[in-house]
């Protein structure tokens, strides 16, 4: 295990870089996923069709295909960014479909009686949404959105393996090939790095779930 302990600083910087990928992708996919979810539940049939098509296509396509499309496809039509940008974008596009579905399941978990009651006592559309439905929908979508995000953190390893440089995966590659350390301990270190991210996220999610759980 010397390979890991001799290079803890390298691992640490790689860990931070990998964490950065996760956080950027988290912000992006939450934003994009919310937009798609709004489309999917809107009364506007054109937007609804767009949202449904987005979810069907993206959810059934492997992340790797999306990633290759960004990294190999876009440069051929003159769109050039670093693999870091392409990688995070692919992760955002891919995860947005799942965030959308998680948010929608949260909205569907609010019983129709809640909305009917709100309308019955004379709340306007905006009041119904902002003070009755969305607060409940938000709380009930925390568990599914949380598990989507944890899965996305795991998927960020795919972007790392594709090669964005200086992240946990590249540290592993560099130590095992260029510096000739034994590959097994080196990649054990990489695996532990990802485990730290996912297990911490799971623990945080469990905490959040207990805090916001609604007993129905």
């Amino acid at each position, binding site marked *: 295990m010397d390979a890991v302990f001799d290079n803890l600083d390298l691992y640490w910087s790689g860990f931070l870089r990998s964490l950065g990928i996760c956080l950027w992708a988290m912000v992006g996919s939450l934003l994009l996923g919310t937009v798609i979810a709004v489309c999917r539940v809107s009364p506007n049939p054109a937007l609804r069709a767009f949202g449904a098509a987005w979810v069907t296509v993206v959810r059934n396509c492997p992340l790797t295909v999306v990633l290759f499309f960004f990294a190999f496809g876009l440069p051929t039509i003159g769109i050039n960014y670093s693999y870091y940008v392409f990688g995070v974008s692919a992760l955002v596009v891919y995860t947005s479909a799942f965030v959308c*579905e998680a948010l929608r399941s949260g909205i569907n978990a609010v019983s129709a009686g809640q909305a009917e009651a709100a309308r019955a006592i004379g709340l306007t559309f905006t009041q119904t949404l902002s003070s009755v439905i969305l607060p409940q929908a938000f709380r009930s979508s925390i568990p599914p959105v949380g598990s989507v995000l944890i899965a996305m953190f795991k998927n960020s390893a795919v972007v790392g393996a594709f090669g964005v440089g200086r992240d946990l995966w590249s540290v592993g590659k560099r130590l095992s090939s260029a510096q000739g350390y034994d590959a*097994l301990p080196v990649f054990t270190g990489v695996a532990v790095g990802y485990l730290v991210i996912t297990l911490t996220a799971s623990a945080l999610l469990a905490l959040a779930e207990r805090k916001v759980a609604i007993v129905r």
Partner: protein
Amino acid sequence: MSNVLYDQPGPRARRRNLIGAVVAGVLLLALVALVLRKLAAEGQFDMELWGPLIDPSTDEFPLVWGLIRQGLTATLVAAGLAIVFSLLLGTGLGMLRMMLGKYSRTPVVVWIELFRGLPVIVTIFYVYTFIRSQRIDIGFLPGDDGLWFVVIGLTLYNSVIIAEILRAGVASLPRGQAEAGLAIGMTPRQTMLTVQLPQAFRTMLPALISQLVVILKDTSLAAILALYTELLRRGNLISLNLDNPIQVLFVIGLIFIVINYLLSKLAEFTERRLSRSGVKPLAADTSAVPAT
């Protein structure tokens, strides 16, 4: 349509919706037109790029589709093996977790949490590194070594997921089932094997089919690690030769989407069938959790 967000629309809301639909439709179409124009401007619709994929009269067409078929077969073989092994191992793990005592099951729980927390791509690469660095000879297994790195990696991850699905399936059964088994004098193991598991498998069926979608998508991770020439890596190699990544990825993506779409429809169908026959199925929609 009336739902929790808005009421049955009246005449004014219907008019507003219609106008909104037209405006949004036009905007979306304009966006599509913009993308298509950009693609056309970059010459992405040239027959030179598409021909090998869609024009049977070109020389490359049979060759390219032969390769794609090989890739698809490789993907299906890897996914098929992975689901079979995952089912076997997952059933074993799930039963161990449910039947062992509170303390003796700790190693099983640790194993499950470990492989659930690891990214699949890390697991696959770790399997490869482990087998190579320990000089384990897996040559006796049929097929490429690469196939088995992928299958073992996918099995380690998915068996753990299936063990958890199984546990949820058993937990969803009415308590009376196990109690009845025990009451007529069956041992806990007999009760599990002859009463609980068969029923749990039925409730699990939709979730299992959904998991197959996840496995199919995950086989494509091999393309990034360059371990096994499945569909996506095959496509990548083709596009390197023909210099048309957008077109090839379009076709490869379409193949994945069609297969996975049909599978998820099948999962929904079995879910409906089961609930009609009085079984309370586990939701097919484990796909709410993204795989790769």
